Structure formats: C-alpha cells, structure tokens
C-alpha cells in the first residue's frame, strides 16, 4: 500500500477552503469522538465558517434529519457509525453529506463488520463524500463494493495537524460537487 505521504498531488479544491464562508453542521453520537469533532469545529469556526456542533442526535432518522437541518447548513458532516447511520438514513442527500467513520468498521466485531459493509453499500447513494483515514480503509471499502466518493484524510493524530484540518475543510467545502442531491 502507498502511504499518504507518497500521494503526489491529491488536491481537493482549486481554491483555499476558507476563501468562502460555509455553513456546516458537525454531528456525532459517539462520546469517544467528541474531542476530535470539537477541535475540527473550532478550527473551521475560527477561520470564518458558520459551524454548529451536535454531540448527541435523536434516535429516529426523521428526528435526526430535522435536528441536522435546523441550523440551515450547506454541508452536514457525520462523525462515527451511529451518526452516519441516523444522519444518512434521515437526510438521504437532502443536504450534501460527508461521512467520517473514524475507522468505525475496523474496530467493530466481525458480525457487526459484515452488517456494516452491507449497510455502507446501501448508504453510498446518500454519501456525497466518505473521508477515509488511510488507503487501507479505501481498499477495504472497495473490496466490499462500497462505491462512495472517497477522500483520504488522516484524522488519527492528536492534536490534529493543520495540514489534516485544511484537507478536511477542503473536502467539506467541495462536498456538494460529489455524489448526488435530491
């Protein structure tokens, strides 16, 4: 596998991501991800974006969709498998949707992993961008016939380096260009 540092030029946006203000909602229902999601939200807010942060979301997809849409976002970013499930099932691409699993399927038990890949194949139609943490995650997803548009951003380091923050922001600012909208 090629490491991230060996990717020649994987530019995502033709202009710096904070050139234009973006209204974005970051959501997670996974307590372990709250710190990283908060740091991403703060980074983007400090650079002029209008960022709303949801650290818990309703358990029903329709209610989750209402909560995610309430701030009027241009992009919704769902962190972790639970937010990814409820958010995508509820929104179904009514708003450009970025999914960041943070390695959720790597960490799942085998039986959950199989069900997870089956769900991801279905959810690909409601995923404008999938942020994979490394090439291996893309490889695994493609091996399971998940045809979401992928962007690789390493979000494992704490605190998150500026380069990863910028790359994630570039992907978020371009989410509307991928997948589909209804």
């Amino acid at each position, binding site marked *: 596998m*090629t490491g991230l540092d060996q990717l020649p030029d994987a*530019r*995502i946006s*033709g*202009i710096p991501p904070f050139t234009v203000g973006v209204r974005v909602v970051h959501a997670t229902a996974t307590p372990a991800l709250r710190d990283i999601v908060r740091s991403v939200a703060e980074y983007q807010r400090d650079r002029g974006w209008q960022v709303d942060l949801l650290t818990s979301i309703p358990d029903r997809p329709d209610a989750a969709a209402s909560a995610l849409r309430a701030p009027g976002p241009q992009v919704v970013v769902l962190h972790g498998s639970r937010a990814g499930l409820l958010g995508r099932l509820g929104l179904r691409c009514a708003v450009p949707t970025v999914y960041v699993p943070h390695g959720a399927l790597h960490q799942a038990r085998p039986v959950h992993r199989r069900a997870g890949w089956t769900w991801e194949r279905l959810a690909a139609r409601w995923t404008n961008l999938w942020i994979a943490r490394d090439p291996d995650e*893309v490889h695994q997803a*493609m091996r399971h016939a998940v*045809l979401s548009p992928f962007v690789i951003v390493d979000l494992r380091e704490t605190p998150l380096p500026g380069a990863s923050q910028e790359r994630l922001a570039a992907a978020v600012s371009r989410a*509307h260009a*991928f997948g589909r909208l209804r």
Partner: protein
Amino acid sequence: MRYTVELTRALNRRAELDVHVLGVPEARGFWTDLLGSSERVHLMRARSAAARSALERLGTASSAFDRSWDLVLGTKHLLPRRIHGMSALAVHDMIPIDRRWDFGAAKRLLLPGPYLRSIAQADVLLNMSQATEGRLLSYFPQLADRSWVVPPAVSTGLLSVPDEPVSDLVGRRFVLAVGDPSVRKNRAFLVELWPTLRERHPEAVLAFVGPPGWSGAPTTAWAEGVEPVPGVLELGYVNEGQLRWCYANAAAVACPALLEGYGLPSVEGLAFGTPVITSDDPAMCEASGGSALHLSTLDVASWVSAFDEALSGRLPAPSIGAVSTRTWDDTAADATAAVSEARRRRART
C-alpha cells in the same frame, strides 16, 4: 470522441509508431482517411454503444483482439480483459464513481465495475490533470507508480478554422457557457443567478452551447432557441467556426461545472483572449491557472459581481503569456514517453 481523434492524429504523425484503430463500421472511411490506410482500421460490429462496450471489455467481436500488440490504448474508460501486450488507459475523470447518479440507470450499473477493473489492469494510466490523478489515487493509492499526468490540448480545428458569426448573438453582450447539459456542468446555477444580473444589464444574454447529454441521463437542457428564463439562450450544438466566434466575442466564458477531469472550455476561452470564470473545481483551476478567476459556487454574490464586471468591460482579458501553447503533438509525445518509461520499469523488474 474529440480526444480519441486528436490523439490518434498526433500519434500517427510520429514516425516510430504504427497506429491502428478499432472502430465502428460507420467510421471506417473517417479512420481510413486519417490513418491513410484501411489495413490499419479494425472494425467491431455491435448494435448499441452498451453492447460495443461490453464486447470491447470481453475482447470479442473483432479479430484485432486476437493479435499481439506493443501497446493497446483504451481511450474511453475500458480496456479488453485479455491483452497480448502492454496496456494504457486514458483516465479522463473519475465521474463514473464520483458522480455516478449523473448517468442513466444502465450506465450507472454497468460502467463502474469494468472501469475500475480496467484501471486496476492497465500498465500505464494517462490522467488528464493532476486533479484527476488525485481522484484516481483516492481510489487506488497503490497505483501511483503506474500513473502519469498527460493533459490534452486545444482542438487544432478550433485554432485554425475561420470565425462564423452566430446570428442569435451578433451585436449582443453575452456570457458563454460551453458543455453538455449534464447536471455536473451546473447550468442551473447560472440560470438561477441570471435574473439578478439582468437587473443591472437588461440586454445581457447567457448563451449555452454544447452537444446533447448522455442518453438516459438527467440533464438541464432546453429546446434550441428557447429562453428558460429571459436572457438565457440554448444554442445546442454549434460547429467549430461558430464556437470560435462565440469564444472570441463573449464578454466572459463561464465554467461553473462542479467536477471536471480537465475543463477544456476554460483553456479554450483563454486561448481566444476572453476572461474566464471557473468554479473551484481543482482540475479547471489547474488547467486555466492564474489567468482565470476561480470562485466557489457556494458564493453566488461573487459570481454575480464577476459577471457584472465582465459585462461592463472591467474584467481584464488574460495576458498573451497566459495562453497555453500546448499542442496535441505535445500530448502524444508525453503519452509516448510515459509508455516508454513504464516499459523500462517493467524490463527492470
């Protein structure tokens, strides 16, 4: 199609190459004229484009598949499954995966698998831009050592043909948008902002030019001559002389596409000295460089302001030095060099 024709013509000019083409019976005369020999034109009989693609991937329906070649170059997303020789694939974009819902149901279901398998199989991947290579490597990071960036060039016909005025636009101030009406070209974005602009420039016209979209795909197209909103004109297909006139006489060329593999209209607009405004798509920003204005399509006000400047004659034209001098011979030379390097690496291993 234009890529295939221009690249074949340029490759055929290279003395060291013996170029053959696999085509449909209807194009036999065209390819025979281009290559100067009917023996180098191989035919494939199939009733539909879908059947042709399937047979091409299976490597049947033409005796050419049974022969041994130094190189087989796939110019339209596919390579035959079994090849006697090296293979190269032109990677125009990753849109069959990145935006597969832009395609009709048949293409959406049938193209991604064979396309991805063709990519994985190719010895040489010829990407239209660094941005396209970036998209390719997002799916196949392990293929970096088989990947080259070989951009296309402006059509030789467009550069040499005489201007042919378009009567609907003569004497009018207009912004030009070139491309098919597929959703990713983002025509709807321009149509939605145009009434705001018409408040400041009541006579201004937004002219759409381009071929029809893919069969069965969702589009944003109107009948030719119809104005979907006042001041928006659908011209449909125009010939190269008319296209040249449009580029040369437009107040600006608008390229709001959401996702491109290269973005030829942005380069063509610059080649004719017209201000170009593109979206933040990285391929178009790369192709048109600092000579064009790049704006996010999330920022509607900036687009309105830029068109206002252009229609008022205040948006500066690109400088002479900004115009790309790249030719199709350069593209052919770069592609040939990439294949030679791949062959050297293969020999070493």
